[in-house]
């Protein structure tokens, strides 16, 4: 019994350890090595096999590379389906993700060799560049996931998103009452600041963190710090508001940088599948 318990402990330990290994390092980079082998083998094949009149996608080696590439692309895009079905073991989601990343990178080599370096304004090259777009956005995604979450967390300063919004609305309520003594012009500035959507700025504003039309900053610039008592108070509250808004916007920026790749990766993947269908059908339609 003791040995059984011991085994069980070991087994559990191994699983626990495995749970904390990054998908990149999964099983000592098993998929990295497999992907590298794929690149080397296809590269050597390209260099050694004499394709007449010259290497291209229509030679037998070209068709072979194309088939490998097509199967890889279809399989890689199935990660979207696979990740919604949670299982463990041999084909755990982590294994899939690891293979997805490394085989996806290997696709750069396989796909490029399939083109035979022949590029043109056609559906074939469209598929190739969509593939590159998907892979490059994927590389960005891996880097973003590895680096950005820590900055996101440090920006939070132990506040939840709801608290950030609450803080802003609390400030807004105070601003509203503090601004009561102000004149028309300044009141309008405050109203504009309060009415502006917290999330104003669109995707570009979020990604770059630039908000040239920010009404809070505008009000801050025009309501004097050294005016009447009411102005002074409103100014102080606007500074607080701008600070709070700054935190929210930094959060938005990091979130956007963290998520933007998916808005390229996913639609481009589906577009790539469509372009691949057009590529394959057109090649055999006009065979």
């Amino acid at each position, binding site marked *: 019994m003791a040995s059984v318990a011991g085994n069980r402990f070991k087994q559990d330990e191994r699983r626990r350890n495995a749970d904390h290994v990054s998908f990149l390092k999964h099983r000592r980079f098993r998929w990295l090595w497999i992907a590298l082998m794929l690149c080397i083998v296809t590269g050597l094949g390209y*260099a*050694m096999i004499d394709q*007449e*009149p*010259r*290497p*291209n996608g229509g030679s037998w080696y070209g068709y072979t590379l194309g088939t490998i590439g097509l199967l890889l692309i279809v399989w890689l895009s199935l990660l979207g389906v696979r990740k919604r079905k949670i299982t463990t073991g041999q084909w755990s989601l982590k294994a899939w993700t690891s293979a997805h990343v490394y085989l996806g990178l290997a696709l750069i080599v396989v796909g490029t060799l399939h083109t*035979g*370096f*022949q590029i*043109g*304004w*056609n*559906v074939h090259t*469209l598929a190739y560049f969509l593939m590159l777009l998907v892979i490059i956005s994927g590389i960005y995604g891996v880097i973003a996931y590895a680096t950005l979450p820590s900055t996101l967390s440090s920006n939070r300063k132990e*506040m939840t*998103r709801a*608290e*950030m*919004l*609450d*803080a*802003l*609305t*609390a*400030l807004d*309520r*105070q601003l509203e*009452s*503090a601004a009561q003594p102000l004149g028309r012009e300044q009141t309008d500035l405050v109203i504009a600041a309060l009415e502006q959507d*917290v*999330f104003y*700025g*669109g*995707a570009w504003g*979020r990604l770059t963190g630039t908000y040239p039309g920010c009404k809070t900053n505008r009000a801050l610039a025009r309501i004097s710090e050294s005016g009447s008592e009411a102005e002074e*108070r409103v100014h*102080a509250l606007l500074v607080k508001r701008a600070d*709070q808004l700054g935190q929210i916007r930094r959060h938005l920026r990091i*979130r*956007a940088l963290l*998520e933007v790749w998916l*808005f390229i990766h996913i*639609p*481009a*993947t*589906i*577009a790539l*599948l*469509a*372009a691949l*269908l*057009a590529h394959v*059908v*057109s*090649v*055999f*339609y*006009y*065979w």
Partner: protein
Amino acid sequence: MAFLIRTIDITASGREIVRDREVGKSELVVGRAAESDIHLADLAVEQRHVRLADAGGGMLSAESLGGLEFGLDGRSVKEGTIDPNVGAEVSVGSARLAISREGDGPVQIIIKQVERDEAAGDALSSFALAAALPSKRTMAWGFTVAILGLLLAVPIVTNLTSTAPENDPMDKDVVGATKFDAAWISGGMSVEHAHLEDNCEACHATPFVSVQDETCLSCHEELGLGDHAEMPRLREGMAPLSTGDAIQWSIAETLGKEGPLGCVSCHSEHEGPVDLAAEEHQFWDQQFCSDCHDDLDARLTDVSFGNANDFGDKHPQFRPLIYTAHFSDKPVRVSLDTEPVEMSGLKFTHDEHMDEQGGVARMAISLGKYGAPLECSDCHSDWSEAERDMMREGGLADAAIGTLGNVKWSQADLKNLKQSGLSKRRVEDLGDYKPVVMEDSCEACHSLVFDRAGPAFRTLRHGNVDDLMADLATMDRGPRGDIVSGRGRPGQFARGGRYYSNFGRPMGLYIAINRALERDGVCGECHIPTMTDGRRDLTPVNLPNRFLMHGAFYHSAHEEDAAGNPLECTECHATSTSNEATDLLIPDLESCRDCHLGEAAAKTEEIVPSTCAMCHGYHTPTSPWRPEDHPDMPGNGANDNVAAILSSLRR
């Protein structure tokens, strides 16, 4: 410090009830306990939850009493400092305490119950980038519909619903009926097919069926491109495929390709602006031919020609096409090994004409046209490349055709020369040398003058015995016998007089005609007399324009030997020892091998390594492939793309 506490409650009908009270303490306790300064009847609030105390300097401190957090300006904290002049908001449970102060007045605390914020969840979702971008699904669908619609559905539908224009090799402006199929092109067109770029259906005639030979021939048969052999014989004679190739081709043939002998298996389109005919050096390699021809007789037992794999080692003797009998209709191919006798129908001796000391030489020296002993080029001249181009391009005026020499063109040739030009094949069939024309090359000595009319000489028409008879029949100068003897007509009517008429029988001109056609007559100098239907005639002249019909030879390429020394005609053609017109002066295989050996031979001052393609073409046996004629074509020489560099490194 005094506090002004204002409680605002909202009735069920939405009306606000405001109650004010002042508390003159320096600290307040907020909690659920009844004795709290600010009593909040909310189970989420501790009995004593927060203490607000004077922190000095006009500031307030807020401090949690029970260890639970409270909200300060939206944050959950356990303690904090508040400047009432700036204002702050403390939230405890569902109550919100807005703290402020007007000037030096009491600290005002306004208590309100928070309405539940239904939109809070929505606001949180706004933190995701998805809130600022169209959804991934929308974008994916949009791209998919655009790509499949424009790049797949439009070409397929228009292809299926339209009729492709008919192929016409002479009309290069035809545009195909399929829309947007330009997006399907997998690479640039070859030089020859550049005009087909907008007419995909010209070659891709049937969906999902690879380009068929039949389609290629719909233009190329008309352009006079011959086939190497009939397809069944090509298949039979083809060398066995390697296992790998056999597997590939069995797959390809299952999918509808026409096999290794189909047009497109060698002529790959969509490889950019290359020259398809001279596309790759692979066809320039000896191996390309020797694969099949090395042991062709093992597979095709009835071939009339020998095996070949290397010009220096294994190549059959030349078999020029000549007439071996007078009056024969067809020339036959005879091996030079059998010392063939050419029956051209002419009498001619090269040695006599070429002898620099002989009578012919003396005569030539005396003639202004020559002024020296005869040279080969006095009678034989080759077509220049410019003349070949003129013939191929066509559109020639009569004057331009005249500059090509005194060639007896057929009506069909004349028509083509004036219009679309002669086919490549026809130009090659004309041979390397122009035909020897009697009037140009012989007549200076072998005069055809037969009469004098005033200051001019009359010349016999050459080439047709009927013309000759007609010309001679007009000659009426021979003396005729008098009808009566002893009496002459008087005055100007007498012989020699102005009005003299010859009433004698025209014996003389018949004799002249007969004499001309005799062995030692004017015709018999060069021709062999014969009788046709009891009438004097001449043996027809059968002199081929070219002798070696299945290989190309250019005299212009042989003006110098490999070392650059001038090459005399007589080094290959034994004219000085030829004293019969029946001698065939075509050099044999051995004579060519003095300089030309196979591809693998080392190049020296004497030896030129020679591939099959130097003399033979696959489709055009009478003209060679000459990729070196197109050094600037990509694919035919230096190419700087990565694949080509790798490819050349590999080689």
